[in-house]
């Protein structure tokens, strides 16, 4: 399978998985909007919620990376498109590490 086909397919697979995950995320934001510190910590450290936050972050950042890459290729001339692609990948990795790190720290303190 060529790189472009793989990219196209991964974008669709991540979209499908994100439909229920984003539905959950929107529900979670209605529970957390205006919530105080203790309520928020309690919500985030419940095992099911922690797993959902982890999954939505991992897959959404990956999906964002794939989408942004296409936009760079369409509108940004080289070499800037390549620089932006690398920058996006770094930001994505930071997000991938920051989200589980924050959840684990809260779970350890709770």
């Amino acid at each position, binding site marked *: 399978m060529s790189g472009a086909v793989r990219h196209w397919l991964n974008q669709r697979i991540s979209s499908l998985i*994100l*439909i229920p995950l984003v539905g959950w995320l929107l529900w979670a934001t209605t529970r957390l909007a205006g919530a105080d510190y203790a309520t928020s910590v309690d919500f985030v450290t419940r095992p099911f919620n922690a797993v959902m936050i982890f999954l939505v972050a991992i897959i959404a950042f990956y999906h964002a990376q794939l989408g942004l890459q296409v936009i760079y290729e369409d509108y940004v001339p080289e070499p800037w498109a390549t620089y932006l692609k690398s920058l996006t990948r770094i930001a994505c990795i930071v997000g991938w590490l920051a989200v589980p790190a924050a959840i684990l720290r809260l779970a350890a303190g709770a």
Partner: protein
Amino acid sequence: MTSKSDQRPISPYMLGPYYRFQMTSFLSITNRMTGVFLAVVAAPLMVLWLASLAAGPALFDAYTAFLGSVPGKLIALICLYCFAYHLTNGIRHLVWDTASGIEMPQIHLGGWIMLLFSVLLTVVVWWAGS
């Protein structure tokens, strides 16, 4: 001197003064713009929320006070609409990927239904959260 590659036709910009306004191209570019907004604004704001929670009550209270202010609420509302739009229009794109609903009348009808659902979803989620 022009090389052969300079003479190749480039794809036209489907918006702006060069092209008649069309719902299809407008909804398509908006899908990209909402996606960019989610990646560049919404995702970092949500990661920051989680990071501030992990950092302790002082930072968390300061951050949520900002989110609860008028500018914070405005940004949150835009983020919510981007989620609603990108989710509903994304489902529309996934339907097209199965090679169904791709006749022009269906595309226009689907566009209006998607816009209606994106607004409804935004209203329902905002109402449920306040």
